[in-house]
């Protein structure tokens, strides 16, 4: 099958029989649900853009399995160029959707599994890599969306999985059968879960011998028996129930997260990619985390939109020539492009693993993601500073349309005389959407905690930085130790 377009993707979702709950009720028509639909649109963009000549250079790759043209989101990186294109694709899609387009997590899970399954097989003579490659080929041929599911609900953070009061707080194997395994547990914060065809499960932390029942990785169809999705709320989410009004901010796109419950779900052996090899959980977690930290290239694209919106509102307010406003916009760009430096650098410094898959520079990926935990907040703060308080005190779109009060809003919320009040309202709503509305889930809090909270990156930075070498250089240059220097 060739790469799907947006329409074909939408139709493929309609064939799924997902068990989705939202606001306490089962969602009968997931694709057309007004709150979920914008997130489907964002994933659909990853399909549509692969068919656009002006984006295919980033969106399309060549399968190392079949030699066929495939969507990059189903690709295993075969070179540094692939890694760089992944970062660039993230920015490009971020700037065109201004939200989380959800598909990177599955790509990152598959790339991590391509490395770790190979390494497990090398040690134990298992066939995980063979199973994984068969699954990968299926994903590539059918151009599927995979939800990469790592984050367990974790219960008491001070206790390992096997010591939790409720053993299901980390997803685990509860039964081994001749033809497969049965698993139980839940994965939280699952971005794009109900827009996915498959779910790829990975352990969330390093597991020890006592936790080997939790050291499991596999893939199942998203509508497998026993899987339930409970959609997470987002700030301002019910504005989407008000129709295509200006109050949505972003008229087309959005994201979603869900709690995914696995209530005794059967997984056939040919879909199991790790089974109790607990000593490889660190490898899988770190490989996935490194790729996913690179993936925050998307925030640079969202930042592009926010900066564009901020410049626009400054012009509409007549403040764009004020020196402090210009300086703040320079600062926003400086922060945003610094983020871009990180995601390009970790890709450019990538390397080949034993499996043949290319992995990013892990230290630089962690540095990049650590910047992402901070800079979007500062960019958002500066945007709100320039936008002004009207962003949060603006009456609704319905008030603007009201025959009684609409005229007053149109009159008194006018900025520059040549700019329609409605345009000013639209750009303010977009800034609101990104900095504290539905899209702030992705741009801010997901930037903080997605792919690991800041402390996770600090631990990795401390571990990976070559401190001995830095000390050697310092000791030699100040004369404590003798080195081979020019004198």
């Amino acid at each position, binding site marked *: 099958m060739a790469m799907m377009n947006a329409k074909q993707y939408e139709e493929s979702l309609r064939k799924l029989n997902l068990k989705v709950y939202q606001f306490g009720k089962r969602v009968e028509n997931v694709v057309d649900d007004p709150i979920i639909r914008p997130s489907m649109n964002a994933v659909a963009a990853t399909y549509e853009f692969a068919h656009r000549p002006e984006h295919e250079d980033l969106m399309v790759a060549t399968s190392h399995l079949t030699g066929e043209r495939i969507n990059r989101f189903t690709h295993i990186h075969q070179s540094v160029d692939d890694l760089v294109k992944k970062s660039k694709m993230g920015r490009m899609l971020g700037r065109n959707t201004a939200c989380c387009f959800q598909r990177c997590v599955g790509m990152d899970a598959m790339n991590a599994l391509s490395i770790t399954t190979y390494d497990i097989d090398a040690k134990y003579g298992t066939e995980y890599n063979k199973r994984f490659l068969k699954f990968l080929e299926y994903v590539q041929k059918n151009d599927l969306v995979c939800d990469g599911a790592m984050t367990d609900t974790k219960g008491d953070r001070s206790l390992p999985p096997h010591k939790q009061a409720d053993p299901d707080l980390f997803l685990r194997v509860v039964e081994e059968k001749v033809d497969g395994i049965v698993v139980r547990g839940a994965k939280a914060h699952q971005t794009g879960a109900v827009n996915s065809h498959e779910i790829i499960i990975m352990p969330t932390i390093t597991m020890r011998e006592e936790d080997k029942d939790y050291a499991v990785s596999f893939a199942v169809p998203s509508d497998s028996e026993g899987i339930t999705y409970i959609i997470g709320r987002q700030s301002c989410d019910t504005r989407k129930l008000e129709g295509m009004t200006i109050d949505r901010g972003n008229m087309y796109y959005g994201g979603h997260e869900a709690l995914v419950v696995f209530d005794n779900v059967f997984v056939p052996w040919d879909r199991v990619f790790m089974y109790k090899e607990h000593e490889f959980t660190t490898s899988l977690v770190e490989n996935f985390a490194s790729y996913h930290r690179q993936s925050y290239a998307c925030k640079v694209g969202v930042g592009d939109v926010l900066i564009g919106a901020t410049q626009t509102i400054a012009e509409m307010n007549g403040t764009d020539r004020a020196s402090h406003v210009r300086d703040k916009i320079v600062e926003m760009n400086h922060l945003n492009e610094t983020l*871009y430096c990180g995601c390009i650098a970790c890709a450019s410094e990538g390397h080949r693993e034993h499996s043949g898959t290319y992995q990013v520079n892990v230290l630089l990926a962690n540095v990049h993601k650590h910047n992402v935990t901070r800079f979007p907040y500062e960019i958002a703060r500066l945007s709100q500073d320039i936008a002004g308080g009207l962003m949060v005190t603006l009456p609704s779109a319905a008030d603007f349309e009201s025959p009684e009060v609409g005229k007053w809003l149109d009159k008194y919320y006018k900025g520059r005389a040549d700019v329609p009040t409605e345009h000013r309202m639209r750009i303010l709503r977009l800034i609101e959407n990104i900095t504290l509305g539905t899209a702030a889930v992705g741009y801010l809090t997901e930037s903080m905690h997605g792919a690991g909270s800041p402390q996770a990156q600090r631990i990795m930075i401390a571990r990976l930085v070559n401190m001995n070498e830095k000390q050697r250089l310092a000791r030699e240059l100040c004369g404590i130790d003798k080195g081979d220097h020019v004198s």
Partner: protein
Amino acid sequence: MKVGVKYCGGCNPSYDRVKTVKELEERLGGKVEFVSWRDENADGVVIVAGCPVSCVDGEPFAGRPSWRINGHEDLDGMVKSLEEAAGEKR
């Protein structure tokens, strides 16, 4: 003359690449027909990059005439180059 168009992926273009190609087509006034870069009957390829990095790999077009646009400012030169190439083709 038939010319294939190959765009970069557009991660952070400094100008509207698609609009620029349309403008190029209009200015050439029918002397050049733009087609997909995959069209094997194309007489050459215009590579349209969004910035001076011009990251599009030229290897697939080796041996065929190719021209690069890295910014809107390259438009005038491109019109001239393609007019000349079309003239030679005739």
